[in-house]
């Protein structure tokens, strides 16, 4: 069973404990939601998993192999994909290029292969374009292929980021607030999308403020407060918990 496991992870920023001795396991094919107030350390947790920051202590294991010390791009190579809280699409590239780029191990990215393996590259790129078109259609951007990413609306940019992630073919998807700022019409779509991806055996970790969305898609919900997971259970149980009400409604 392919799993991602965090063991006793801690991380502080200038004395502020953003993650405090946190341990958790994410099973393959599961959807886990992280909820919690602002500043709880949710994004920091994803940053630790993607390797943008390294923990002060603790281990991160993926399929029982240690990830600590691997560079972010190496982790991405092993199948970690990221959707950013602030979109982070490539503003000056076209929509299509944004997606084409996400394809891993493209031979055309190596300088010399461009000289002696042209056919192989052409073939690869052709397939890449086919995939990309499929994803573009999937997120409803197929008419915007040649538009510059910067000219898309925020909601469209978010969908583009999704399509890019899909073409990145990741096994563990780290989604930071995928529905925030998105038109309600797309929210349904994103929910379907996430369910579908999970069915294909991918691991999904999602940060989400909208509890309705969370309840619909997650197998497990983790309530994070001040760098700790205070509650971890299935959606029904969490929905009934007092702690959640306390946090969300201030009761």
């Amino acid at each position, binding site marked *: 069973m392919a799993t991602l496991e965090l063991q006793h992870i801690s991380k502080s920023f200038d004395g502020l404990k953003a993650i405090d001795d946190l341990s958790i396991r994410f099973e393959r094919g599961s959807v886990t939601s992280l909820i919690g107030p602002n500043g709880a350390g949710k994004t920091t947790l994803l940053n630790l998993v993607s390797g*943008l920051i390294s923990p002060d202590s603790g281990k991160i294991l993926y399929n029982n192999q240690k990830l600590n010390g691997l560079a972010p791009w190496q982790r*991405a190579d092993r199948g970690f994909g990221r959707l950013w809280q602030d979109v*982070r699409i490539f503003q*000056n590239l076209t929509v299509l290029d944004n997606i084409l780029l996400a394809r891993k191990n493209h031979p055309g*990215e190596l300088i010399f292969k461009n000289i002696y393996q042209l056919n192989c590259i052409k073939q690869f790129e052709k397939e890449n374009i086919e995939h990309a078109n499929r994803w573009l259609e999937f997120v409803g951007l197929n008419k915007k292929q040649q538009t510059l990413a910067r000219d898309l609306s925020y909601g469209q940019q978010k969908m583009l980021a999704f399509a890019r992630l899909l073409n990145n073919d990741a096994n563990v998807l780290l989604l930071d607030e995928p529905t925030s700022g998105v038109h309600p019409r797309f929210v349904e779509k994103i929910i379907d999308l996430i369910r579908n991806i999970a069915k294909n055996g991918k691991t999904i970790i999602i940060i989400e403020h909208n509890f309705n969305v969370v309840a619909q898609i997650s197998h497990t919900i983790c309530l994070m407060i001040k760098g700790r997971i205070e509650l971890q259970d299935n959606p029904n149980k969490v929905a009934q918990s007092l702690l959640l009400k306390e946090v969300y409604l201030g009761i």
Partner: protein
Amino acid sequence: MNYIYHIFILINIYSILALSLNLLVGYTGLLSIAHAAFYGIGAYITTLFMANFMLGFIPALIFGCLGATVLSLIIAFASLRFRGDYFVLASLAFQIIVYTILYNWIDFTRGPYGIPGIPKPAIFGIEITSLPAFFLFSLIITVIVLGLLYWLLHAPFGRVLQAIRDDELAAVALGKNVTSFKIKSFLVASGVAAIAGAIYATYVTYIDPTSFDLDESILLVSMVIVGGTGNVKGPLVGVLMLILLPEALRFLSIPDTFAAQLRLIIYGFLLIIMMQLRPQGIAGKYQFE
């Protein structure tokens, strides 16, 4: 007619320089003010191997390119650690250090006296001495080099560079080894600049450090920025403008002493105006973020 050939040879040399600089500035997003240093390193090393070791043009050129690419690792390393104005400053530092070495390392470069009598290139035993022949020779090299660069920039390789420019972190998270791409873009850009240096040295048959000083780097950056960054067309427009401008001034029969400064003043104004009206340059695509 000789004069026309001269202008076209200059355009060839500067097109190579501007396009390779654009690889850094407009594609990878690194505003480097050290391009004249690589141009100079290429010129000096090629000259050294041709004059002292009697190598032919092509073997000497290969050494020149190797020298420039190896030295570019220093500044590539800087680009991994600094961004924005700190990188600009680091590249400026590199430019000044290289210039100082060219100027002071008398044994190797003859310092301010320069190296005269550089042999003309010979290809397949044909010595290229006449001006039209040299023009043809430089044109062929330019077309090959620009063609390869164009190809590379339009391949997925160039696409990754642009992604790194737009958002390094997002590129990393997609599995792109940004470190390696940055280093590669420096290797290519500096190696290509060295080719321009070799053409220049064998064309003028005399080099001294002042052709590769900070002002030259600034001129190159101006060409790229005024013409436009982020595509292939932009820098070429910049080269045409900035090379033809002084010639235009000459036709307006402005005295030579005056024209040199006037030309630079116009460059200055162009830079300021472009930054206010069209930061992506006249024919460019990308504007700095």
